[in-house]
């Protein structure tokens, strides 16, 4: 059975990738996180495949080792034969890079990569959703604040204040949250205290 090493600065993603790889039948998995000495770990564990997060600055160091000694990893060179350019492209766009030590059967590495790509994408989606949720929450707060100011200063009902904000946003081709933030900032500049 091949020994896998996961190098990922994001512990959550690394854990979920490990689970998926275990489920796919890879029993030997070593996880290396941020701040750990990657070179020492490679020397100690001698993995056959290393999966590394592309945002890890250790990438250049890891890659250069192939010039130094044979047992050290080399990049996914067999993809160079253009046999599977799509998988490589998908891996790069998901942010994962793979290194192998010896010429492993292409199928095995491909399945490892596919699991990794899926996990990296899933993780990115979760992160995007969280960002989206956070920004929507912030929008709601700012809209409420702007509505409050409008209601107080122009004697408007809540619905009227909201419609006015919506119109402002549409006229300026902005999102309503953005328009509300601009409005609150402008009022603050004019000396209002809210």
């Amino acid at each position, binding site marked *: 059975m091949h020994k896998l090493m996961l190098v990922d600065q994001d512990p959550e993603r690394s854990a979920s990738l490990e689970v998926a790889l275990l489920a796919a039948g890879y029993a030997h998995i070593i996880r290396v996180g941020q701040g750990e000495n990657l070179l020492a770990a490679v020397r100690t564990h001698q993995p056959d495949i290393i999966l590394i997060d592309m945002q*890890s*600055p250790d*990438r250049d*160091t890891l890659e*250069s080792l192939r*010039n130094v000694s044979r047992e050290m990893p080399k990049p996914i060179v067999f993809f*160079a034969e253009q046999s599977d350019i799509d998988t490589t492209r998908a891996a790069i766009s998901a942010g994962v890079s793979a290194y192998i030590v010896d010429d492993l059967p292409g199928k095995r590495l491909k399945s490892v990569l596919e699991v990794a790509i899926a996990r990296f994408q899933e993780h990115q989606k979760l992160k995007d959703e969280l960002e989206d949720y956070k920004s929507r929450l912030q929008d709601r707060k700012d809209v409420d604040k702007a509505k409050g100011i409008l209601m107080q200063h122009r004697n408007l009902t809540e619905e009227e204040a909201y419609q006015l904000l919506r119109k402002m946003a549409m006229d300026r081709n902005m999102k309503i949250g953005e328009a509300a933030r601009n409005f609150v900032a402008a009022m603050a500049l004019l000396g209002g205290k809210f």
Partner: protein
Amino acid sequence: MKQELRIGFLPLTDCAVLVAALERGFFEKYGLHVTLQREVSWANIRDRVAFGELDAAHMLAPMPLAATLGIDGLGIPMQAAFSLGLNGSAITVASSLMEAMREHYPQALCTAPVRAHGLKRLLSAQVPRKLVFGCVYPFSQHHYLLQAWLQDGGLALGQDVEIRVIPPQQMVESLAQGQIDGYCAGEPWNQQAVSRGIGQVAVTSYDLWNNGPEKVLGVTQAWAEANPETHQALLCALLEAAHWLDEPHNRVRIAELLTRPEYLDVPLALIQPPLLGRYRYAPDEPERLLPDFNVFARYAANFPWHSHGAYFLAQMHATGQLATLPADPVALLAKVYCTPLYRLAAETLSLPYPTVDYLPSVHCLAPWVLRDASQPIAMGNSYVALERLRL
């Protein structure tokens, strides 16, 4: 014409041409909407360009050649029609080693440029161990300069000293933690070690090979073939930006822009002095004047000389990166370093350009005038201090 472009860079002072082109509106002027994307490693830059995630990138000058030769990464052929500048890097040595040399072999530090003999003598007496030096990437001028400098001092690679690849922005931390004894990297990463008192600059690239090659704008050959108009627009924008940058008062402005979090994210004091030609070798020394520490446009700095390419081939061979030299190096270099594209852009902007591909005089002690050009071009001196670098 493709107008939306993503261009990758590493946080180094010599990404200045790209930043100037964006912030001063030169990209816009040529109809390009560019996003600059900061990357963490040269391998990322290479792979993202290779697979079209980035349209173009800040690359070490030998990278497109190594990719085309198939000895780096996936071997997707690349090319460069524009050099992003000359000089700009240095070799920093741990302060403890510099102090030990000063104490035991002060003579070794009195040569110009400082040679590595002092380190070799320390090894046999005071420091009975192997030294470790960092370099930014195997296919880089930094690597070749570092090897040449160490070997000139009598240090045997593998035996006395080991060279390890570390991305530039991690060098200072690696030095601070004692994982390396020194390194060769671009700014601001030498000035940062000096300002923290943990390292001192032994020599700059300017001392070893004045007006030597450094970075280029790299694209894949497939991209260049598919987007000739965009490529020309990009070259014109960069040429204007490089000329803008060689005006001293604009150096002050670019230094401020480079401090921003999305670019270098380090204090102005580490970026501005070298850009203005004031360079600090050691914390307790006054700054030295190196007016050409960063050359962005003068001396035909943006021209992708084939002579530089031929030198890279020789270095790749000498360092064992390339087992056999290519059968037709002239054709290969013409494919990788695209001088006709550069000339076309210079012609569009009515700027002078060389009409030859090989620098007539690489090793030259005094400023001179290049007459093999559309109009004569003033050239700086190009003193090459070490034998190994004259390959």
